[in-house]
């Protein structure tokens, strides 16, 4: 989905709140939220794609104004409700008030997929173009490279396609590649001497 999480290249966020040292968890609730997501993801057997998509479906205003561990809490609660471990009203009763969950899945569940793709279609050095599509569900193809041309610099292993695994029990595995883009090809104001590499599944790409 073209969600708020897809931040690459967005403008107006200002300075990075940079600190060279900070505690792993600033408050105990952060550690608890983190652990509870591990608990829920294990109990409902959520794939990495389903877990990430449960964060991506957060209401955009909530996403931008809450910290990383609040994202994890919201994901844990959303998955727990969607898989029937708890109900939303139970959560709100216990919390003594509003308990925001992520929005609904927009994509239909994937029940039937084509076979695994075992052999890479592309080699190191090949020019490729990123398909310009806008899937309503989970994807790991960032918006800022869609329709752009790049060069394959590494062929990685065969991995489960997130766009499929996020929406059901079906799985398809495909090769992944690291693709290099010149900043000048990505941005009108691309900085000199900058190359951006994005790791992409086979079906996100076509021959340039």
């Amino acid at each position, binding site marked *: 989905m073209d969600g708020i999480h897809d931040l690459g290249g967005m403008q107006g966020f200002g300075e990075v709140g*940079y600190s060279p040292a900070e505690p792993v968890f600033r408050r105990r609730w952060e550690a608890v939220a983190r652990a509870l997501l591990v608990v829920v993801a294990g109990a409902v057997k959520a794939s990495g794609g389903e877990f990430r998509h449960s964060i991506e479906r957060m209401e955009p205003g909530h996403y931008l104004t809450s910290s990383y561990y609040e994202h994890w809490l919201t994901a844990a609660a959303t998955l727990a409700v969607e898989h029937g*471990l708890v109900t939303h009203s139970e959560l709100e009763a216990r919390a003594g008030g509003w*308990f925001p969950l992520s929005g609904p899945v927009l994509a239909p569940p994937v029940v039937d997929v084509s076979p695994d793709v075992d052999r890479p279609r592309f080699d190191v050095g090949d020019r490729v173009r990123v398909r310009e599509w806008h899937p309503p569900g989970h994807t790991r193809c960032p918006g800022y490279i869609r329709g752009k041309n790049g060069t394959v610099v590494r062929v990685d292993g065969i991995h489960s396609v997130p766009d499929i695994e996020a929406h059901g029990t079906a799985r398809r595995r495909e090769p992944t590649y690291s693709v290099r883009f010149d900043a000048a090809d990505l941005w009108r104001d691309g900085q000199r001497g900058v*190359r951006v590499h*994005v790791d992409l599944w086979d079906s996100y790409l076509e021959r340039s």
Partner: protein
Amino acid sequence: MSVGGHHPAPASPVEQRVAALEALLTERGLVPAGFIEEITRRYESEIGPMNGAKVVARAWVDPQYKQRLLADGTAAIAELGFGGPEGDHMVVVQNTPGIHNVIVCTLCSCYPWPVLGLPPAWYKDPPYRARMVREPRTLLAEMGCPLPDDVEIRVWDSSAEVRYLVLPERPPGTEGMTEAELADLVTRDSMIGAARL
């Protein structure tokens, strides 16, 4: 209420929500005893940038190890005993006088847990994720890492299964140091590529 009595701060809304979910999951028998404490302890004391620093120091003193590390990061890192979730497919990218590498995850916050631990807050927040792929030269300078114009910047957006570790350059004047002393010099941010040593 007496003066000086114990007044714990009231729980914030997010703390109340965490407590609510924890209580409901615990009542359903889904939270093993001690699980939260154990997972917290592991990431606070065992899994962190001190692991990555050992990998970097070994690569600095042992050219054959460095060769293996650049060829197969996962296997070479496992030689030092590090591996696991978010570290199953490691690629190590090497800084040189003419090339500076930096890692980011624009879509979420992917990060090589076994060697760097859990990511710092700024790595996960929107400004870093939005800007590092668009204006890395400006952003690195703002973060205290200005680079000459003739240094190529290679940004690695961790969007699939590979997790990256930056191998920083060994600082000059460290020739006589032991591997352990060298590891003490290696910072978390130098292995993200947000700083140089």
